[in-house]
């Protein structure tokens, strides 16, 4: 009877602690040099609730004491998924990555082995039209210290704001960005949202002229230019720009997007 009671007590405690066998496992490396194998229970903002692998008690650790994490995850073919993303097959990227990273989405602010995958999923959501999911992912990822990922997250946040007409938020995001190319790109997007395609394209051209080898922002900017020409009613220029974007960035998702745009425009002509 006592034994049953103890099991019951343990069950209640486990339930109240939020622990379950489904909690993700990770190797947690601390800034003081220590390392733990843990279950990730909860992200409390400034601290994580975790449970050591061999322990039955939850504990918390301040986020700023964590150096990085190696999160255990189902296997996935990274190269294949990247290939699919490049081919603009966003739905299959989402199908493949969601089971891998969605359960640990709350922990993406801390350096870990799944951040790149999460960034890819965020972008796949955006290009697949899942703006809400893309935005939610961006808000989680933008606190990361990885500058490239942070920038990508801020970009998605701003773009989803623009897509929903929330220009104030987009302006605010623009203020958070220091990368000059990214700033120009987002400013051009903002001007486009403000129905100023001619101003926007001149901002975009400033990026093209000053950062011609920026492989992160150039493809996006050229695709944006194609759309801006379309906004101006210059279909031929839009087709020409889309065609060049498709050619210059062949084998990338933006190349594919440009191809789709060009084909649509050519059919409608």
């Amino acid at each position, binding site marked *: 009877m006592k034994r049953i009671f103890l099991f019951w007590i343990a069950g209640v405690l486990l339930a109240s602690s939020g622990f379950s066998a489904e909690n993700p496992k990770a190797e947690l490396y601390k800034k003081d040099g220590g390392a733990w194998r843990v279950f990730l229970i909860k992200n409390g903002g400034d601290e994580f609730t975790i449970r050591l692998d061999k322990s039955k008690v939850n504990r918390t650790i301040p986020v700023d004491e964590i150096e990085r994490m190696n999160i255990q995850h189902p296997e996935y073919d990274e190269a294949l998924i990247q290939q699919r993303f490049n081919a603009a097959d966003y739905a299959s990227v989402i199908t493949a990555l969601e089971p891998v990273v969605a359960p640990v989405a709350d922990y993406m602010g801390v350096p870990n082995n799944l951040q790149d995958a999460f960034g890819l999923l965020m972008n796949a959501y955006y290009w697949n039209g899942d703006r809400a999911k893309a935005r939610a992912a961006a808000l989680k990822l933008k606190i990361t210290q990885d500058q490239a990922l942070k920038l990508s997250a801020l970009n998605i946040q701003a773009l989803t704001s623009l897509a929903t007409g929330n220009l104030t938020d987009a302006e605010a995001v623009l203020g958070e960005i220091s990368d000059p190319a990214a700033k120009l790109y987002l400013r051009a997007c903002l001007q486009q949202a403000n129905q100023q395609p*001619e101003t926007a394209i001149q901002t975009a*051209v400033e990026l093209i*002229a000053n950062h011609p080898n920026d492989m992160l922002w150039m493809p996006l900017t050229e695709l944006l*230019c194609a759309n801006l*020409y379309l906004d101006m009613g*210059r279909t031929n220029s839009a087709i*020409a720009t889309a065609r*060049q974007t498709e050619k210059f960035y062949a084998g990338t998702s933006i190349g594919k997007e440009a191809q789709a745009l060009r084909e649509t425009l050519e059919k409608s002509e």
Partner: protein
Amino acid sequence: MTQNRRIYGGRGLRSNRVIWTLFFALIFSLAGQAQIEKMSADEILKEANLLLMEGQAVDAIPYLENYLERAKDSEDARVLSMAQDVRFKLGTVYIQQKNLFAANTQLETYTQLRPAPKWNEAMKLLSTGLFEVGDFEACVRVTTNALSGLPADVRAKLEGDAAEAAEEEAKRIERKDIPYGYIENEYGELVKKPKGTEDVVDADPFAYTVADLLVLNMTLGNAYIELGSDELALVPFTYVIEHTDNSIHKGYAIMQVVNGLIEKKDFEELTQWIPKLYRTDARYDIRVNMALLNAAMALFEAKEYDSALPLYRMILPREELINYQSVRMWEMKLEAEMITPDQVPVEYRSQMDETLFGKKYSLVPVEEFWSEQERDDPDYNKPKELLELEALVEALRNLPPYEQEVLYRSAYLYDDVDRPWEAVRFFDRVHQAAPESLIGKRSFYELIRVLLDPLEQRAEAEERGFAYLDANNAGMTPRQIAYLLTGFYQKHDLMPDIKTLLPYLEGFEPTSDPSIRKYDCELYYMQAVADLVMLEYKVALAAFQKVLDEFPQSHQQEGATYWHAATLMFLQEYEAALPELEAYVKVYPNGEWIAPALFQSGTCLFGLEQYTNAFDRFTVVIDTYPDAKVFPDACSLRGDIYGSWGELDLAVADYRQAIASAHTHAQDKYATFQMAATFELENKFDQILQVVNDYMDRHGDDADIAEGIFWIGKTKVNQGLIDEAVQAYFDAIVQYGVDLEQGGVDSMIAELVNLARVKMTATQRDQLKSDLFSVISGSDSETLQLRIRAMIAQMNGTEIELGKQLIAELPDLGNAAPPVLSVIAKASFELADYSRAEEILDVFSEKFAESEFMRPAFRLRGVELFLAGDYDEALKLIADAQARYGTDYDAAWAQLMKGEICIKQARFDAARSNLTAVLNERNWRGVSYAEATYLLGQAEEAAGNPLKAHGWYQRVYVQYKGYDQGKWAADAYLGSARCLNQLGLTNDARNTWRAMLFDKYVNTLPQADQAKQALGEEETLEISQMIAAGMKTNIAVTVEQKEGE
């Protein structure tokens, strides 16, 4: 002297020392040779090896050579093997001594004889040796042999030896019982095999290492280049690019591959290959950048624009490259311990931290590149890579600037592929960076060009273009800018704007440069064309004459000749125009305007009433130029001549031909309604209806419905079918009148009003009005209601009253059709209320730009601007009005106002010219003549010519006294008296006032009060009494006589 002796003595002593040294060397050499001869072969080898081990390679040479001499005839395998080994060593010693010819001989012999266990090494050394001595063909032969692998016999021997050695080793290990995983070290101790080595099996232990292959491929590539076979060099250099870690070597190889692909014109390969550089640091390599520049230019020249653009984007600006490489050079100096970190300039330190972290380049150890010779060099302690880099940076600094060229070509490419905004901003950058350079000026031209076409960014183009013209008046570029602006204005039918460029043209610094003069000629020609289009025929005539006079035999000689003649014709100066047109036909029998010239000459003959000649000329056009744009016009005018001759069937045939070949709606319309008029002569009403209906079917909504319905109505009237005609108009008005944009309805209203006045009885009119009132009350359409109210007002002659009513009633003119707006404009004019002038004209311009009812709106706005003193805007409006209405009767105000503005601006010649033009236009006979004559008087008076002014005033009150209720005559009397007073002819002035009071046309007008005041009460009373008594003055009699004339 002592000094000299010491010097000479010293020199002698030194010379003797050299001679003695050489002597002893020879003696020792001979002695040494003799000693070697006495030694056995084994002793010789032993001595040579000893010397080599001691680093005395030079001393070993006689021994090695002697051994080979002794062994040359031997067939003993051991001796042959030893000789080969000696030959290889001798080859390497010669290389160390930089005696490459001797080295090559030994190594080549080595590779040809057997055994040759070091065949690979020998071939590699031979390859570089042959390259160094410049024997490139042999180098290619040897290197390709080396790369194709070991000869079969050499490989078999090596494999046999290796197997034997392995077997021996296995036995040895077995004997010593060495456990698995252990090896014997150099001291015979058992140690564990280093981790990772035990399972590695080399795929081919006798093949070259990657390092060797890099040397061989680099050598082979360079040899091919030296032989001019750039294409063949692609494969070896590609190998280097793919395998080397040395960034300088990689950069060099990339440059060679790019050059090779350009030479091969393999742009597809080039395009696919180069973008890979995007992601590597090789793009910071100076030679790579230069190669990219070459490649981009080659692609550009080959019109492979899509491929060239990414390359131009990759080319880094010179300063960026130098900065990057400067950081590298400082790093190298640090690595070579040539400097301490604190000696690095501050501006490079932060960048170094970045690049040193995970260094992106490899440094070759310093020692490897040092030689005895280099130690004498001031740079001897610099790594070779650093020296190479310094040379490259220096070469880059000395290169002419290329950044602007890159930007310019990028802009050109964007422009070519129809990405105009990119093109504009890139051209702008080039111009901003180097505004005075040739490329900067060319870029400015292109910038303005793209802004205007295709972007149509008129505001920016004008702002920048005119600012440029304000600051520059010499050379080609200002002319080009003026040309672009003129072209844009011409394309958009903005003729008055073209004229704003004339002062700039006149301010251009004259030149004898033919290419610039060609621009000047073209610009003045375009000015003349603008004058012509603006109906400023006299100005145009002078402008074309200027082109002919100042630019004789120019590229526009033919055009100016034709248009000069055509302008004369437009001025109806047929006698002057005809010989010029005929001269054109003679000089340019195949000219661009040959058909129009023939046609216009026919028109001149027509105007000169030489109908037969005109007929012949039109026939030439019809027979010779069936595709000409004037062909339908020639048909129509010949049809008119046939018609005048009573040849109605032939006339109709020509009209039919004109309709069939019409290029424009106007040509079709003219022939259609002329044909209708011809049918009318024969009362062929059915044909009229047929031809008009066909016309309306052909053009649908674009047809001139008003004209069509007019003819249909008129025909029905002629057929006596008044009711049908009225009904046709009425139905059409009710049907289409709700639509604001149906301009034809408004013309029908005018026709129906006319019909009501002329053909209808009072009862019928009342019925019609009643029906119209019913339509008003039964319709919800404000547009239709307003139209019908305007129509009823016209029928009642109460337009002004309605206009006044509508001014108050309609705060918004959105639903007002042209007749309604016209009524409001007329009422406003009557009331001198200009408050809505701009609004009314704007509504017309935006909605009814082609409406005939727009005329009063133009005038209303024109007067408003004139009264406000805004002469520039008024002149623009006048130009617009004249472009539309030309010399139509009710457009005379525009020409008159132009003259009046000139008077206000004290431009008296222009005033005279403009006002005289009114008197030369027959359409403007009547009140406009009176006003023009009066204004000519004003012009002369303002110009200080009271006598001439008096003449004009006198002409007004003599010739035009009855016009405009005597207004002009009255003003002219007063003007005349003023002028006579100025001339001191007070008596004549007094007589003029007297004549004014006798003149029944003016003596009751307010102006007469001035005459009365001048003459005084007594004389005024006297004149009144004389008039009452039926008396007439001499002056009045004279006036009446002149009227009679």
